[in-house]
């Protein structure tokens, strides 16, 4: 049971969603974040003010999965998020101590296995 955190380009969000769907990974959270991963600084000019923008918009996926789904999730994030340019993002896989589904009280693998309503 792992928490897979994927940070990707906002414009690749839809591709990642499609790839996750194809891998039958159904449960995830998504948030908009800003960060820097070594890409070129962007230069913007507003009238006389020129700035270097070091923070890029990114989208952060958090996906808790049971062990058999860890690799498919990573593959989906890579496949959907990759452009080949610096700034495609990172994937962090961290161990999960405990998961509880609030509705039923189910824990761990049961709680990260999606139910079909």
């Amino acid at each position: 049971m792992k928490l897979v955190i994927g940070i990707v380009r906002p414009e690749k969000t839809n591709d990642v969603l499609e790839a996750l769907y194809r891998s039958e990974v159904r449960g995830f959270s998504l948030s908009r974040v800003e960060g820097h991963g070594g890409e070129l600084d962007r230069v913007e000019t507003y009238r006389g003010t020129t700035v270097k923008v070091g923070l890029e918009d990114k989208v952060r996926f958090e996906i808790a999965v049971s062990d058999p789904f860890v690799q498919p999730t990573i593959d989906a994030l890579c496949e959907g998020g990759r452009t080949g340019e610096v700034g495609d993002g990172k994937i962090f896989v961290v161990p999960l101590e405990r998961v509880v589904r609030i509705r039923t009280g189910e824990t761990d693998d049961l709680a990260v296995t999606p139910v079909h309503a």
Partner: protein
Amino acid sequence: MIDTSFIVAAARVDTGDTAWMLCATALVLLMTPALGLFYAGLVRAKNTLNTFMMCVAAIAVAMVMWAVVGYSLAFDGDGALIGGLGYVGLHGVDFQPRDGTTIPHLVFMAFQATFCIITTALVAGAVVERMRFGAFLIFAALWSVLVYAVLAHWAFGGGWLISGGTLDFAGGVPVEMGSGFSALAAALVVGARKDYGRQALLPHNAVYVLLGAGLLWFGWFGFNGGSGFSTGNPSVLAFTNTLLCPACTLLVWFLLDLLRGRQVTAIGAATAIIVGCVGITPAGGFVSPGWAMLLGGLVALPCYAVIVFRPRTGVDETLDVLAAHGVAGFTGILFIGFFAEASWNGVSDGLFFGNAAQLGDQALAALAAPVYAFGATFLLLKVLGNLMPLRVDDYEEARGLDVTEHGEEAYPTGEGAILVTPEAGIEEPVPVADPA
């Protein structure tokens, strides 16, 4: 050689007419930034500025081309297909009244210039979110002469349509059908956005859209109300019809929205305002207020149908210029053929009042304008496309054209922005992961 210009000069400039036309010219110019706002609200946030800038750029490019050569080709002489070169560089365009009007030639030229500008900006709606800004500037410059000026000559400047009897009060031929069918050609040549049909590409700010539509309507009183070039009856009639017709379009659009989705939509309402204003544009000074109201309701039907149908095709005519302008202008031009009323316009009756020939003249324009606009724009962009790339690359399209084409964002947060001081100069960007 006897100089005959003094005979023309004998016609008098009317101060009241001139005052109104100066205001009307400013009103029509306002329509272009208003269109920028309308378009900017309809695109995704990352393309807001690029979309708005296409409209701003149209003011620059089309105005200059108009002064240099466009005005002359449109309004010098009465050649069947194209005007002369007598007014190139605004030569001889001065304070004397323009033939057939009581306003100075300069004011007439300026008023017509604002039409050329807004029409050029309209075409941008077909290619937003993927066309290169530089390529658009060149396209706009050529289009404003090769397509707009030609159609303006046909319908306004003494060309074969107006001399053949076609009635077009304020630009159903050059402005509305000209932009609408050109937009279709532009969308086909430039091609669809890469996410088109794969992702939901939604308007990012419906308030901009409504505000833009409201300002367009406001400007349209100058557009239609000024197209009589006076404060006389045709102008008064067109002005009032510009109030009545879009109001009816709004109501019918609400009804269509209710029938289709059980809810009245705001972006639908903004679209209805445009469609109503476009519908009355050719007919404004020719039909009675009652028939103008019927036209308002009627014009909603084909435009609504095209707007619902178009996204189901592969044609990414992004902001539906064809539906809102091409189809609505087509409907308005034909409507004159049925319901023009000599007792109101002092010019001609339509079929309904016993003059079937007028419908024939209108049908001719409704056929010729789309064919020319589509064909000429298609060819122009095909040629340009062979000389330069028309589109940004896939990465730039994904990133958004605001940053990649203009180096600005519509909604910058300033977070993570490091001030580059003038003393330090702008350093070349260096990848942080790979310092030199």
